[in-house]
């Protein structure tokens, strides 16, 4: 809760284009991402190699983007929730629910067609997807009602669904992993369109729609106002409760979409493991992107970059052949470094320190 009133700022400097670029809030997360990619460039041979295989692009970068897609979606939803000073830790459970519903409804039964085994969907895919998204929306509405209607603290309100949601998903499947045999469904997770993974188009579409919604309507302004000063927002005539309800529904919708993507990608629904700890990664992505958990100002693009940072890091760890024991240590160290690089205070101290060293040496 650092009020901007207290942040010490240096004097005005002439805003050249370069300095404006450096000062841009997205500069630091972006720089962190670029730095990580540079590390890959040096340590992983052929990291930037892209080739056309079976008519589509193939390579590490594509993998990262593809794998990051669900995380980006979850982070986009989480951004809005966090902007209202809330938090949603049920994202992983919603992923499990929507994936399970879709997988169970679609499933796939084998029929012989002209002597060739063919799989057809149990339920028309459109209906199944609608049902899955409907389930996700219900989850969001539930969270939203608990927070906005009942006034529960967001973390407990969503904890309820976090615990019970996965249980529900397992209840549907009897604890089994539901395998899907119906091909068109896979397109969602591992299909390609114009040479690029289909999931990227989904993410881009959701991002664009959300960004437009924030820009072209007053939603962005209202969400920030509610996050920064709910009392003032109410007195200014905002429907604070409806707004809060909306962000939780939106967050769950994003999570639901992510769930579909994940289950389509592995061609099955794993109620127990799908999206496990996704909520933590999503929150991490949002904060790495420069949005404060205290609510208010938010950056959708920042969250996307944050998610890419996380996925690149994970992928890097796999690629450079580190023993799994030290995965976590590496991850934590990188997160610390990224955080520090974003801290103005750290930069000042570092500068003072360097100046002192130089002074001592002279």
């Amino acid at each position, binding site marked *: 809760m650092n009020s901007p009133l207290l942040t010490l700022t240096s004097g005005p400097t002439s805003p050249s284009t370069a300095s404006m670029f450096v000062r841009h809030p997205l500069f630091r997360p972006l720089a962190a991402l670029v730095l990580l990619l540079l590390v890959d460039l040096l340590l992983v041979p052929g990291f930037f190699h892209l080739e056309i295989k079976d008519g589509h692009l193939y390579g590490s970068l594509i993998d990262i983007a593809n794998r990051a897609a669900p995380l980006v979606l979850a982070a986009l939803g989480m951004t809005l929730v966090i902007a209202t000073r809330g938090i949603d830790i049920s994202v992983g459970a919603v992923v499990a629910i929507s994936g399970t519903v879709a997988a169970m409804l679609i499933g796939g039964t084998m029929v012989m067609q002209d002597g060739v085994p063919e799989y057809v969907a149990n339920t028309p895919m459109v209906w199944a997807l609608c049902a899955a998204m409907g389930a996700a929306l219900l989850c969001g509405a539930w969270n939203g009602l608990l927070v906005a209607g009942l006034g529960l*603290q967001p973390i407990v309100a969503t904890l309820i669904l976090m*615990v019970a949601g996965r*249980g529900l998903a397992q209840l549907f499947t009897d604890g089994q992993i539901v395998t899907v045999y119906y091909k068109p469904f896979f397109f969602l997770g591992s299909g390609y369109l114009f040479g690029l993974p289909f999931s990227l188009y989904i993410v881009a579409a959701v991002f664009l729609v959300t960004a437009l919604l924030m820009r072209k309507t007053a939603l962005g302004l209202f969400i920030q106002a509610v996050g920064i000063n709910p009392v003032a927002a*109410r007195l200014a005539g905002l429907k604070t409760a409806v707004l809060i309800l909306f962000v939780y529904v939106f967050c769950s919708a994003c999570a639901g979409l992510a769930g579909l993507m994940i289950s389509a990608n592995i061609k099955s629904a794993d109620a127990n493991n799908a999206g496990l700890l996704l909520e933590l990664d999503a*929150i991490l992505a949002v904060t790495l992107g420069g949005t404060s958990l205290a609510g208010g100002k938010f950056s959708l693009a920042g969250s996307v970059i944050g998610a890419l940072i996380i996925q690149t890091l994970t992928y890097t760890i796999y690629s450079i052949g580190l023993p799994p024991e030290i995965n976590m*240590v590496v991850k934590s160290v990188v*997160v*610390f470094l990224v955080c520090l690089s974003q*801290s103005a205070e750290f930069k000042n101290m570092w500068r003072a320190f360097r100046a002192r060293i130089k002074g001592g040496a002279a």
Partner: protein
Amino acid sequence: MSTMILRGRAWMASPYFTSLVTVMLLIVLLAAGGVAYPGFLSMQVLFNLLIDNAFLLVIAVGMSFVILSGGIDLSVGSVLALTTMISAWLLQSWHLPPLLVIVIALTLGAGFGAAMGAMIHYFKLQPFIVTLAGMFLARGLCYLISINSITIDDPLYVAMSQTQLPILGGFISPGALIAVLTLAAAIYVAHCTPFGRAIYAVGGNEQSALMMGLRVGRTKVLIYAFSGFCAALAGVLFSFYMLSGYGLHAQGTELDAIAAVVIGGTLLSGGYGYVAGSLSGVLVLGTIQTLIAFDGTLSSWWTKIVIGGLLFVFCLVQRLMALGAKHKK
């Protein structure tokens, strides 16, 4: 839906009331269990609640300080695991005397917390992200020591594990006693010392606290150090309890601790609540689990659903009663 939190003036008193409601509901929960399952209300079952949740209670106490100050500490579960690991390693591989090991473990825990607190305060980083990274780091360090679990056979630890302190016809473990003493000490610190009050002030409004001339930086670093200390102490209790060090111990305990603190009536935004609430919160969670264990018919998923459901009913009733009381005023 207009009965919202966002009411500026009148909502202030509710968290205090919430703490009371929690205790009342806890009693109702226990009574319900007693009616439904024979043997549920035996003294030993109640003591088991304390014995089995001693480590959670200690963590929740540390967490309640952090939450009261408006922060959050996600690293506690991992610090607990790291403590068990370091203790086991020092005991089994280095053969250090157990008391020394305990002192080292507690110091490391407090130091770990203090370091995170310092980063949070001096570099103005968000507590969530710093402690999340701390959580990865501590867990990762466990695996650097060993990915296996290490059994502890130090006589002092074994004694602490197996001693039964008789009380009221049942028994409690030394660990449970330590937890209760920690709670008592924390309540004293929170309500009767300047440090404790500074925590509330920082949670109420950090900027104001600074303008009022409080040592906000020192307070924040100390809070996280205390939380780290509590996590380490919980780790020590856990290694008494399990007699082993293991990197996978206490996964997700941070969420349990946060839930316990919040259910106990503390506001996550800081400034409102009681440290004692963490006890009622922990007991509520423990009772829910015990109820399920006594029932013994629920499958894995029903267990989750029922835990979620009970949590919901509990929060709902708690909230409605608090709202009702406010309206009557």
